[in-house]
């Protein structure tokens, strides 16, 4: 990790990071919400299960943790982004549901019940 010494450095770092994230666009990205409350509802187990199962089933994907998605009523929540598609958030993801997500959505692009529609605007969408 090199130092960021000037504002210019910061911009270069940012652009490089954004550039890099564009290229593995053909990789499946999975984010698991992992705030204290998510973990208490089992998101750690869900994340471990997903990581293990993807490996067993030979599916290449980037799995990362993230903070609270805000859908506390439907914990654990997992967001899956398939290459070239909009991110989809799934709620109540236990091992059984995670298996279904891998088999049906990730492998077949088939949507399954329990999708949580995004109900907020991000700051870039506001006028």
């Amino acid at each position, binding site marked *: 990790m090199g130092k960021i010494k000037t504002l210019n450095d910061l911009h270069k770092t940012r652009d490089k*990071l954004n550039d890099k994230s564009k290229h593995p666009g053909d990789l499946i990205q999975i984010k698991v919400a992992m*705030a*204290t409350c998510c973990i208490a509802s089992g998101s750690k187990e869900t994340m471990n299960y997903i990581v293990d199962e993807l490996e067993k089933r030979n599916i290449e994907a980037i799995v990362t943790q*993230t*903070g609270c998605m*805000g859908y506390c009523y439907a914990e654990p929540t997992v967001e899956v982004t398939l290459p070239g598609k909009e991110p989809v958030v799934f709620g109540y993801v236990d091992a059984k549901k995670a298996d279904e997500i891998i088999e049906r959505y990730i492998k077949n692009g088939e949507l399954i019940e329990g999708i949580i529609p*995004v109900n907020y605007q991000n700051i870039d969408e506001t006028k």
Partner: protein
Amino acid sequence: MSEYKIHLLVCGGAGCKASESNTIAENLNREISKQGLDDYAQVVMTGCFGFCEKGPVVKIIPDNTFYVQVKPEDAATIVEEHVLKGRKVERLLFTDPETHKKISDSKGMNIYKKQVRIALRNCGIINPENIDEYIARDGYEALGTVLTTKTPEETIQMLKDSGLRGRGGGGFPTGLKLELAFKNESDEKYVVCNADEGDPGAFMDRSILEGDPNSVVEAMTICAYCIGANKGLVYIRAEYPLAIERLKTAIDQARKYGLLGNNILNSGFKFDIDLRYGAGAFVCGEETALIHSMEGNRGEPTLKPPFPAQSGYLGKPTTVNNVETLANIPVIINKGPQWFSNIGTEKSKGTKVFALTGKINNVGLIEVPMGITLREVIFEIGGGIKNNKKFKAVQTGGPSGGCLTEKHLDTPIDYDNLIAAGSMMGSGGMVVMDEDDCMVDVAKFFLDFTVDESCGKCAPCRIGNKRLYELLDKITKGNGTRQDIDRLINLGNVIKDTALCGLGQSSPNPVLSTIANFRDEYIAHIDDKRCPAGVCKALMKYEIIAENCVGCTACARACPVGAITGERKEVHTINPELCIKCGACMERCKFNAVVIN
């Protein structure tokens, strides 16, 4: 591999389910089969869209068509027209209330998205333990701009222009707070982040620290530059281990990048952050108490003035800001104060994060523009009350706040309106209550909390709150008198006027606001010895209905205190003097003969 071309998303939120969204899904499936489109289109039930007002809702992807108020009999039309022929069903499209135009692509209808995420912009999106992901989303850009192109005065002016007010409860203008600390000359100054979140049911600050700790680090550095401080402290509850861990990671990573430390971004400015752990005392959320606790003294408040901006941590000028307030700052710098002040109401700008909890369908963390109504929050974003019960009240501001009722449902939420309604914004806990909640009991719950958390320094809070609690306890036990209501009001007002700090000055609010809004409930407890919501145990009376009792003796055998008497095959009776209201008899009775009165 069956690759569906069209997905029909049917809302399965509680509100839409109640208006037959299940049947809609069934009908859609049937129509799809009828048309032989099984491999082409798929129907999926989803969670709540947060648009219950216009439910049931059906969204079709990939073209993002949004159909509202769909009826089961519309299924055939949707499948025939939209799925088969690719023509949108005009009459089911949502009409924009302002332009009166039909909106066909939901991407263009953000109006249904009631939430705007500023403070939560990265929560649930980035990996909080990787500073790179923060930087990739314009992280530290604001700090860079400020350090290289703005003077402290200009930066403070930007924050003043934005209208940002403290999100911890008081609502003091943030820019002004920084200006006061800036103007006080000193060899040493401090920037403090107040992460001592303590309201029951509130988890906004924890979520921000756990989801986007870098935003707080960046904002503290900006504040430090504004006032001329080189040292920052985060006062955080030791009960938040994950937040602490992630914050530490963020600080470490920022140091490695040189975004904390000496000569940040070649500006000559130096700043670093340390953590201080709180033991969870509620009063330490008050800034003077917080500062004393950080100094290693008892966490007790002191009189203001002097304000921390004059004499704070170690007697030096200090600025104390709440986590959520800080999280807003980088966005204000990046997008400009004008952008920020366009959101919200006249005197309350921007958004507010609320932890929506209680008897509500979509318990969650939400961020809404100031000025949104309670109705929109509860019945749209929140998806309405659980189990179709009746809405009774919402408690905002925690132990310092009050209850808002049905008559406040259409009041725009902002600092001043909430105070006018007898509550307060507080830090953002929102506890929703339904018809099964007893308001006297709720007031008692919060008073119990304040009595526990009062530091004991001043008499009004230490003694007064205890007396308030005792009066409430007396009423819930059925021993209250009408004079007790007056006593509660008088004493409550005296405490508000005379207590030393914010804790005592606001602690009677739950009592005063429940009396103002639910006096009849207090009176029912006093005059009729009855708890209308059926919560206060002492006022419940178990009775046996003679017609239903067959004399099986099951209840008498179940009663742990021998309060039930009666011969076999004869009607039994409960002795109210002995009954401890455990409910064992009611559970055991197979003939519904035991009832609560």
